[in-house]
């Protein structure tokens, strides 16, 4: 038995050593400081929907924004909801709220300037930042007529510029026919997609634009719709929206909770690769860079993973790309547990998780199901630019090793940018004016 124990011990050591080896390269976000210098245009991602979801216990508030640009008569929105919503559960939200929460949580750029290597120096830092954006879910509608198709109009309201009906159905074919007869342009395959919701006894929240009311609002766009309800499932029905998808579509989801980071339980949730140094020329084109980065990462995961772009306690930020939402704004978003009398930054127990998903028609077989974890470790998609010191290379003894280190660092930055975005390494080096120092080696372009 002693020999068995010895052998087992030996095995154990081997296994633990192997396991530790696997883990060695790990990196933590460094501490940082700095200030905000700018952000990229919010219209970065086309075909993007933005959803704010507030959830605590069973209480759920969903706000949906879209950037629908087609004819208003053709706009329609169909959302499965757990119960027949009363008029008071539905509200028109403000687009500004989405802009605020977006700019607060968007991926960002941080800039640092190398100190004079000849002196012991302090550092300056700059921050910049950027974005992702709105949406469209579409179908088509007119109203009228009755059942016989097993469809019941449970309620109908006019809220702001929207005419809203809450439908329940007993058969998906009937519902599809009803929607068609009432002027909604339903994509093919709708009845198959509607069926699971009908069988789970869900209702359908259907909205179209009331042109008269719309004219009175005085704005050219459609304002976000908000609805509040109780539901034991923490999920977001995305399958209906996918029917319309031609190419990949983006969904940016801001989840506000009280305890910790939110992730999906039925798909992988990854943190977007961040906190690395990038070439300084990225400063002028961060929007383009992040767009390419996200596209490359989403494609690499076959559009089956969801990326966390931000997770932070709402009461503070470091650095702040935009001020945290005020208690009034949070209440507007549906964070019902924030006291309206409380002052700004008063340690509100509100956590914001920003999730960004790019999906195709077939990449998500199931609706998104979420859980709130107990994770409270802050995360932000932040990229760092380090400007080299610009003094002469013969300024002092330390200058030479400094510039050698800068060259090495720039090469690493070029490679990081290339691997994140899939851009050609040689052209990155050219843009950085690195080509003379480090020629592209033959194998680096071979497989591109």
């Amino acid at each position, binding site marked *: 038995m002693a020999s068995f124990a010895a052998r087992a011990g030996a095995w*154990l050591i081997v296994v633990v050593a192997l396991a530790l080896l696997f883990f060695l390269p790990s990196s933590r976000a460094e501490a940082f400081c700095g200030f905000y210098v700018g952000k990229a245009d919010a219209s970065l991602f086309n075909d993007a929907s933005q959803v704010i979801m507030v959830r605590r216990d069973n209480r759920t508030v969903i706000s949906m924004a879209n950037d629908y640009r087609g004819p208003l008569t053709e706009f329609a929105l169909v959302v499965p909801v757990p119960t027949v919503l009363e008029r008071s559960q539905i509200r028109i939200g403000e687009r500004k709220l989405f802009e605020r929460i977006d700019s607060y949580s968007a991926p960002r750029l941080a800039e640092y300037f190398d100190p004079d290597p000849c002196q012991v120096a302090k550092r300056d830092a700059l921050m910049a930042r950027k974005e992702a954006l709105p949406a469209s879910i579409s179908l088509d509608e007119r109203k009228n007529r009755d059942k016989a198709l097993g469809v019941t109009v449970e309620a109908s309201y006019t809220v702001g510029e929207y005419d809203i009906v809450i439908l329940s159905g007993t058969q998906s074919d009937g519902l599809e026919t009803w929607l068609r007869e009432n002027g909604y342009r339903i994509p093919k395959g709708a009845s198959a997609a509607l069926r699971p919701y009908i069988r789970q006894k869900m209702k359908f929240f259907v909205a179209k634009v009331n042109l008269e009311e719309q004219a009175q609002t005085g704005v050219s766009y459609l304002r976000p719709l908000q609805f509040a309800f109780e539901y034991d499932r923490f999920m977001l029905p995305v399958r209906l929206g996918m029917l319309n998808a031609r190419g990949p579509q983006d969904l940016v989801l801001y989840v506000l909770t009280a305890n910790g980071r939110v992730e999906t*339980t039925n798909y992988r949730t990854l943190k977007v690769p961040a906190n690395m140094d990038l070439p300084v020329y990225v400063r002028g084109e961060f929007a383009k860079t992040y767009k390419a980065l996200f596209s490359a990462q989403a494609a690499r995961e076959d559009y089956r993973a969801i990326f966390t772009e931000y997770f932070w306690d709402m009461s503070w930020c470091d650095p702040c790309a935009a001020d945290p939402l005020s208690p009034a704004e949070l209440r507007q978003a549906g964070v019902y547990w924030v006291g309206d009398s409380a002052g700004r930054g008063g340690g509100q127990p509100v956590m914001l998780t920003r999730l960004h998903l790019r999906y195709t028609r077939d990449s998500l077989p*199931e609706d998104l199901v979420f859980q709130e974890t107990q994770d409270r470790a802050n995360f932000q998609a932040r990229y760092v630019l380090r400007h080299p010191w610009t003094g002469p290379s013969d300024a002092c003894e330390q200058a030479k090793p400094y510039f050698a280190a800068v060259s090495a660092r720039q090469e690493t930055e070029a490679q990081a940018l290339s691997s994140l975005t899939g851009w050609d390494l040689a052209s990155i080096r050219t843009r950085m004016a690195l080509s003379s120092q480090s020629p592209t080696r033959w194998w680096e372009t071979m497989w591109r």
Partner: protein
Amino acid sequence: MSSPTLFARAAAACDAWRMRYPVLRDARLFQIAFLASLLSIGVLVKDFALRPEQMALAFAAGIATQATWIRALRIRHRGILSAVITCFGLSILLRADSLWVHPLAAALAISAKFVIRFHGKHLYNPANLGVILAISLFPGAWISPGQWGQEVVLAGWFVVLGGVVVNRAQRSDIAWVFLAAYLGLVALRVSALGQPWTIWLHQFSNGGLLLFAFFMISDPMTIPNRRSARVAYAVVVAVAAFLWHFELFKPNGLVWALFFCAPLVPIIDRFFPAPRFEWRGQQTGGGRA
């Protein structure tokens, strides 16, 4: 035609090795190999959010706890292999934002193995208990049920099927019954709701399910001794997990179901007695003479 021959040959080769190296008769070595590869792929390729320090501390605490109990209780014929398996299981399943969660969970789970015992068997599968204690009692601990990618699951199945060749009849009956019952219920739900079958496939390709079936519920020390009782037990756990997930809509149905069903085992053993399982191949039955 050729596949049974191949199977028989592979099995015969394995048996020959076992005759020469008795230590290989211990099915737990295979388990460790499986769990280590699952974890390595997960961490290297799939960004499992596990820090190396967390894993190192879990192993240190787990092994130390096992060694301490063995010494304190003067137990013989017991090594630390099962502690290693527990620590792998905890590392694969448990996520935390601090360093102390993993070692504490490992220490408590392994201690429970020596403390909470009925009829000479421990009640809870240690990894199962550790995970449940951590997510329900410790702040900053959670499970990420969505962490698996299809590649990990594919690799997992590959190793499991390899293991079937190596360890024929290693009481894996319960794993297969459980899988059939659980996936059967999911299939019924999919067809009742008229959902696309890709949903069933999506549920099927979950590494957590695989891990649970072959390394948690099938832990021979925490399941009924009699075969027919084991089958019934697997079905009960499957139904409980299904209800937890699809009726209560709560995450982590598998580990919760096993946690709630484990206390049934001593009762079942009392009414349906049978000889107890021993590790290291003496009583593994099945294909070996």
